[in-house]
């Protein structure tokens, strides 16, 4: 029996840029930021919503060989940039206020706050192209 979700892998275009966005812009906290030279400079970078101890996002570079051959890596990078590499869904206690704050910070919204049967939701992108949604339950 699996007991808990701990990390979700998010492919990013540039880890420094992602770190800046997820922490300074979205207000998440860094959980781990470790670079391992003997693993080709692999950087284990995780961030999380401060109020949620159990789950973190692993913001990872798309690796080349030996993990992925160059062609595969390039396909994955392209899918991320096209917004086709999945998405993240968050709850917010104030979708409208968060929308206004993030919009002011220059975040790219693909959907303004919209009333849906399940609550108020809005959608935006991280700098890499990953879709992020926030929802406020009625």
């Amino acid at each position, binding site marked *: 029996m699996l007991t808990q979700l701990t990390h979700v892998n998010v492919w990013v*275009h*540039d880890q420094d840029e992602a770190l800046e966005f997820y922490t300074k812009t979205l207000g998440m906290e860094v959980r781990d930021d470790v670079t391992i030279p003997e693993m080709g400079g692999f950087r284990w970078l995780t961030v999380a919503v401060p109020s949620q101890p159990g789950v973190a996002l692993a913001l990872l570079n798309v690796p080349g060989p030996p993990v992925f051959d160059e062609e595969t890596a390039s396909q994955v990078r392209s899918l*991320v940039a*096209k*917004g086709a590499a999945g998405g993240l869904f968050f709850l917010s206690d104030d979708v409208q206020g968060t929308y206004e704050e993030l919009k002011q910070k220059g975040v790219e919204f*693909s959907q303004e706050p919209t009333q849906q049967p399940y609550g108020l939701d809005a959608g935006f992108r991280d700098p890499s192209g990953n879709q992020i949604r926030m929802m406020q339950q009625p």
Partner: protein
Amino acid sequence: MKPLAPERHLLRAKDLMDARYAEPLDVATIARAARLSPAHFSREFRREFGETPHQYLLTRRLERAAELLRNTDRSVAEVCLMVGLRSVGSFTTSFGRVYGMTPTAYRAAHPPAALRARVPTCVLLAHARPPSQQVSRRQAAARGLP
């Protein structure tokens, strides 16, 4: 910082259509979001996403229109304008091609919006309360009073 993948700029243009479909968007405006010339942009967009920007924007607008027809009681002409289209005639034609019926028939095929509207409880409480005179008269009648 690494330069962005070219597809990322195209995604920006796609997002712009999703966010601003209600405005009268032209290809030049959309292409600017991707930092490409209009002609180059349309070609690249089609190569990466499998449809032209025009097709993407029109189908987005039709999808939004269908939603408005189902969930609001705005007229067909209003819905047409609300999704950024200016000609009701070509709206009806495109809508028919996709949904196989006119906007009016599409609306009729779905339960009326008023039945499905999620009106907040506080509004219902305020508006659904019968006028108190009705209660007083009925109570008065029950007691055999004029």
